[in-house]
Structures are given as C-alpha cells and as structure tokens.
C-alpha cells in the first residue's frame, strides 16, 4: 500500500462524517475496529451506525492517507483469545482532525451570524 504525502491537512477537507468520527475516537486512544464502531454509535446516540464494510473501507483509506496507523495486534480484554488489529492516530491525522474542527467552527459562526440577522428581520 502506498502512503501518500499530504503536506497540507486542508487538502483532505471536508472529511466524511465516518472519517471524522474515527479520528475523534482514536484521539482518546488506540481502538480496534469493532470498538470504534460501538463507540461511534454510542456517541451519536445510534444515529451513525457504521457497517463493517464502510468502517474498514474508511480505515483502509485513512491508512493510505497516513491519518492513522496500525499498532501491534493484541487480544481484546473482553474476548480472551481473539487477536484484533488496533489503530492509532498519527501526527498528521491529529492535524487533519484539528483543521476539520476549525472548519466546522467557522461554519457554525457563519450560520449563527446569518440566523441572527434573519431573526432580527
């Protein structure tokens, strides 16, 4: 798999919701695929339920883009002998997540300004 070199995090924006959620989850620490899926569903109150194909499709692309990387395989504490692949955020991935958050903040600011005007009219 070829890892592309993205010097500017802005190049990848806007992020797909699934990708952004994966970055946010991994910001709290390493996770394996199934844990990511459960965590995202919990955080969004079940509104975003990633199917395994979409989840691993996103993971594969993020690995290629250098947003995340695999850490060593280890057994899941909840499931004794199953070996699972864990993922963690890269430095570049953190920068991209921050840039996406800043972009969203700017959007929210713009929306608030607009709706404010509309409310006054």
């Amino acid at each position: 798999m070829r890892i592309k070199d993205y010097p500017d995090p802005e190049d990848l924006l806007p992020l797909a919701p699934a990708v952004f959620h994966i970055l946010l989850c991994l910001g709290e620490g390493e996770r394996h695929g199934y844990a990511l899926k459960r965590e995202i569903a919990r955080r969004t109150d079940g509104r975003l339920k990633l199917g395994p194909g979409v989840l691993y499709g996103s993971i594969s692309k993020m690995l290629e883009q250098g947003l995340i990387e695999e850490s060593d395989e280890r057994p899941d504490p909840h499931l004794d002998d199953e070996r699972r692949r864990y993922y963690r955020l890269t430095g570049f991935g953190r920068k991209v997540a921050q840039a996406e958050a800043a972009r969203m903040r700017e959007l929210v600011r713009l929306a608030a300004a607009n709706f404010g005007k509309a409310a006054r009219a």
Partner: protein
Amino acid sequence: MRSIWLYRLLLKLYPAGFRENYAGPLEREFRDERAEAGGAAELARLWVRTAVDLLLSAPPQMIREFGEDARHALRLWRRRPAHTVFAIAALAAGIGASTGVFSVVDALLIRSLPFREPERLVSLPLFRLAVDVESPAQFHSWRRHSNYLADTARYNTSEVNLGAVRESARVRITETSANFFSLLGCRPWRGRMFAADEDTVGRDAVAVIGYGLWQTLFGGDPSALGATIRVNGAPFTVIGVAPPGFDYPQRTALWSPTTFDWRRIPKSGGIFLEFLGRLRSGLSWPQAREAFEAEVRRLPQGSIDTDPANRPKLTPLQDQLAGPVKKASFVLMGCVALLLLTACANVANLLLARIVDRSEELSIRSALGASRARLVQQFLTESVLLSAVAAGAGMIVAAWAAKIANAVQPAPLAGQKYTVLDWRVLGFAVITALVTGVAFGILPALYAGGSKASPMFVRPSGSGRGGTRARHALIAVQIALTVILFTCSMRLSGAFLALMGVDNGYQVRNLATLTVSLAGTEYDDNGSRAMAYYEQALRRVQSVPGMVSASATEYLPLDAQKFIGGEFRLDGRSSGTIALMLPVAPGFFATMGSRVLYGREFEDADARSTEPLAVVNEAFARRFGDPGRAVGRYLTGEDWWGKASRVVGVVRDIRYMGPTANAIPQVFRLTRAPQHLTIVARVRGDARQRLAAIRDAIRSVDSRVPVFNVKTMSERLDEALGRPRFYATAMAFLSGFALLLAVVGVYGVISWSVLQRRREIGIRLALGTTPVRLRRRLLGRAMIPVACGTSVGIAGAVAAGRFLQLLIEGASASGPDPFVIAVSVPVAVAMAAIWLGTCRIARLDITTIVRAE
C-alpha cells in the same frame, strides 16, 4: 453456520487486496452480530444491513484497486512500448473485425424491421392465389377469410419515368393493393395513405411519394400534396408522403394502388406479383406453416411446381430480406472469431513471456504478502485494460468494415444501414473485449499467481516446464487456426479467380452500355414512332468517333433482374424446353463480342423483313440434338410471334445472370419498338472515356427522353463480382494477419526458450557441439507444436470447407493443390521464424555464460 458460509461468499464481491487485509475482521464482526441477533426478525434486519453495507462499500474499493492496478499496468506498458503496441494492434484487428461483421448481422437479423410488430410479417414467395387475381373484390374477400393471415397485401415493382415539376427522373415504383401501408403499420409523414377502396379502377390515380423524392422533387414543400406527377406519362395525384427511411420494397420511391389496374401505368415487360402478409395474432409459426401448406395443397393440380426450389413458401419477412447475406455473414463471423482466437493466443504468449521479465517484481510482491488472488486480479486487470484499449482502436476497424459492407452489399431497407453506433453493436464490442481480456489473461494470471514467496527470489512457474508447455500449446493453437484461415482463404481466392476467368459468352472490355426509356414520351407507341426514335439514336451513336459497332437489347446481361421465359419447341416436337425470351437489335452479338457458332446473327435487312426469325443459344439447341443442325429449323412456342420462326443462328451461351450462374436455354428474336432499350456500343480504347459522348449523341435526338444506367460493361462485371471479391479479399486479409501473428508468436517462443536455456546451451557448446547442430536440435523440438497444430488445422479446414460454398459458389470444390500450399506456407514460415529465433546461439559467448553460472 449457513449464514457464515453465505457471508464468506458475499465477501468475494470485494477486490482481492481489500479482502486480503480485512476479510478476517469483517467475518469476525459478522459472527458477533449474528450471535447477538436473536429471532428471525433480527436476523432478517442483520442481512438487510449487511447487504446495504456491501453495496455502499464494495464499489469504492473496486474502483480504488482497479485504479492502482491500471496505473501499474500503464507503467509496465511504457517500459515495453513495442510489445504493447503489437498486442493492442493484434487485438484491435480481431475485435474490430468481429464487431464490423456483427454490425451486419445486427442490422439484418437482430434489429427489428421498421414496421409494426415486424416479427409477425411474412413474405409468400412464389405464392399464387386460388382466386382470380385480377379482381380487387375477390382478392380482398380471399384475404379477409384467410385462417392464418390477419391481412395480406399484393404488390409488383418496376422502374418508371417520373415527370414532375422539374425534369424527369427514373424511379422505382411499387404498385400495391390499398391495404399495403396499413398492413405494415406505416403512417404518413404528410397527407394520407391509400383509402380502403382506392385500388379499384377509376379511383386509383393517386400516389404516395417517398420522403427522399419529396425532398428532391418538391424541396420538402407541403404543397406537393395535391400536385400532379406523371408516371410513364400517366397522371397521378400526390396524396401523401411516406416517413423518412421508409423505402420498402427494393428502395421504392413511389407507391400507387394500381396492382389490379396494370394498364394505368403503361409499361412493357413481365409483371411479377408478390405477396406480403401478417400472421394472425396468437398463431404460432408451426401452426401458420401448416395452414399455409394446407392452402397450397388446395391449389389446382399442375399450378404448383414440383421442384422444391420453386414451391411457394411462407418466410419471415426479415429472413427473406436478409437473403443470401444471412448465411455468408455467419460464415464471416466464424472466420473473424478464428482471427480473434489467434490474437488471444498470441497476446497470452506475449504476457507469459513478460512474467519472466517480471519474476523479480512478482517474487517481491509475493514475499510481501500479496496473495495469489491479488496477483491474478492484477494480471486480469492488465489484460482487460489491454483489450479495452484494443476495443477502442478496434472500433475504427469496425466502422471501416461496416462502411465497406454498406458499399458491397447494401441492406435491403434504408432503415437497416450497417452501423457501429448501435447499442447492440457497442454492447457486442464491450462484451467481446471483456471476454477476450479474460481469455488471454487467465493463463498468464494463473501462472503469475502460482509464484511462491521464498527467502530467495524465485522464478514464477511461468518460466518453468509448465510455462513452456503452455506456450507450446498456444503455438499449436495459433498454427491450427492459421492453417484453417489460410486454407479457407486459398480456396476462396481460387474460386474467385475461377469466377474472373469464367467465359461469360461476350467480351467485357471496350463496351459501353446505357438505357433509354420512351415510357410517357411522345415516342411511346409500340410502333413506328418508337422504331424511328431507336433507329435514329443508334445511327447517332454509330457516328461517335472511335465507335466500332453499336446495337441494342431489351435485357442486358448482368443488368436485368427479371426475365420473361416460355416453353419452346423445334419443328413442332411435342416436348419443349423452357427458355429465356430475349429481344435484341441487329448486330447485337457482333457488338457484344459473342461468337456465332452456326449460321448467322440478325442483320439490318432482317429488321425490314416480315419473316419471323430467331437465334438460339447452344444450351437451347443442344436440348434438340446436334446444335449445328438447329439452323434452318422452325421454332414454335409461347404466343410471342404468332407463327413459327426460322432459326438463323446458334450462338455461344451468354451468362445473363452473372458469372456465378450457368447459362440456361435462350431464344433471341428481333426487338420491335419496346418501351425501353439498352444500347450497347463497342468502342476503340477505353469505353469509360466514350460514355459521355455516347450519352450526348442519344440526348441529341430528343433531350426529354431519359438516358440512364450509363456504365461500361467492365463496371457492371465489377459490381456483379463485388461480393465474391469482398469475401476473397476479407479472407486474404484475415489469413494474412493470422499468419503474421503466428510468425511473431513462434519467433517469440523460440527466442525466449534460447534465453531460458542459455546455461545448458553454453555447456553444450563448451563440450564441443556446434551452433548449427544445436539450432537443428531446437528446430526439431519446436516443430512438435507446429506439427500438432498443423494436423488439427487440416482437420478443421476440411470441416470448414463446406461452409465456404455459402460465400462464393464453387469454393468447396477446389482440389488438393490449394490445400498443400495452404498447409506448407504457415509451416515453412514457422520454420523460418524458428531458425531466425535461434540465430543468437551463434553469437553467444561461452566463457561469459559459464562464468556467470
């Protein structure tokens, strides 16, 4: 457990690279969710979720991996541009030629005819009615009571002089019963079609004109409706315009409801009625045929020919229109498929050779964990991409082939023009490209996938013994296909050359021909005025500089499609023979360059005499004994002259229907003031140069009399031989290309095997063997697949031979001579390629090889 098995199967929808990395986690998650799903409802929900997930996630992965593989393939192609261009050219020729031929098959047999419910339309060739055909009332009553036809129309076609607003033109008219258009489901573009009772005498002076005629005569002006046109002088009112592209039958430009009123349009020559029907709905073909046969059996005894070729038939209209082109197209389709197979074998060989070049890359990829499936996928992507590019290039070949086919054998209807811009033809090209890509890619892909990872870089199995066997097998296939194509080509060329050499019974060179028609002019009286016109026209033609002689005939060889025939007897004998009845002017045989075998031909004095005279051909005279004794005997027969005619000469057989058809008995008499006449003129030098002068000489008599079909006899013969020439040329091209592919294939394999066995060769040379001895040994070994291929090819060629008859008459009757050449050429060329391929042995430096090892 069954759920897991099914899910594993569904995982195959993902591309190999993705599957390799994530099949494990995906399956594990599915297991977890399957374990959590309790009842049937939850299980159903799980499957729906899984299906949606697959639909959302599989396509992007496919596109991603295809992109990766395609970029990789492009890099490899850039590294070996010559190989790549050759492979693309080979496949483009194969795919393009197949698509071109398919466009003909599609237009004639697959695309629906441009009529309403065309699958129920039938043609009834050679059908005669049990009722009086002269009366429209009886015909309509018969057709309404048919138990298998919902409707039937009758028609006859002919060429007429059309006088309209501007100059007169020569067009084809179809005289029909009033229900012709409604039967076909054809609606008017402007105006209306015929009313139900408009085919009765007195009401039938109306005409529907074709869209093209409307444009050329009236410039598309709506005021054409109601205008009066003159058909062979008879006035007709235009009531409607047919839609664009409607020209059934036989590229008709004009329709009139006068099939029961033959005198309405003054014309000479025979009238050939044809019937067109629509099957009753709900009736199957076998039921319809049975009902038709029952009707034929009810016809009066003696009115039906016992010869099966002349028995009435019930044929789907589409089949009848496709005619002989149908079978010929299938044969050509088979031939181009053979070429495509040859190209596939060749490219497969090329790719197998490339695996050796890429052994290092494949070993590294394998060692890095690329699965067999991933490598196979990459090779298949490369081969399908190659064939896709080739298909793109092949469309140029296909368009070119369709253009030639349109010129050589135009489709019977304007709406059936052969084109590659049709979704079926394009779909055929796409499917052919895909199948071809997989066909030639699968073998190299499997060999590449067979390479194993090992601590040392190993060669993939493609370079081993299995690879050699596969490459030899491919060589055998190529040689077999080449021998088949080459033999077919030789036989077709032989048959075509035989056609070219056929004695047509006249001298083709330096002969100019043109037709005049008096229909509708002031000379159209079947008497003295017409004769005076023709005599004057011939005199003027004879005075054209460079003229040797000039004469005329009512039926010109190669030109006339319909003849009048009748039964004739000599000296009142009871049994006669059927012969063509051919009126000619004095000096016809001398002008045509036909040999008079016995007696003499018609002379100018005969035209003034009142004694009926006849000339017969050899085939006719032979039916009554020694041809030399026919002269002076009296001919009786059809009510043509009223009394017996004296035979004054016997001439060599003239092939009226072209070089492919043997001459049948012919009876000639002097022409007497016909409505139209074809003038033949023998000139000194090139007839083409004199055509304009001869035409002007005839026009100078009266410019209002149309002069048409201005051609040399050589041009007419070229047209008649157009189809056989096309088939012979196409086959020569196909077999030549196959031979080239085979040569490149054989050369490639042998030079590759020399490279492979460098070490062995080096040692042998070091031990004292001479390069020549080694080359002989390699030649012997490489000849094994060539010999195998040749024997299979010979068997295939014998089997294919009988189909060639469908392309050119007499092609399967060729003797063993072309066979020997057809087999020896590919074999000799293969041997030369092998000998050349081994020449690098002589240049090998033994010390370098041995030291390297």
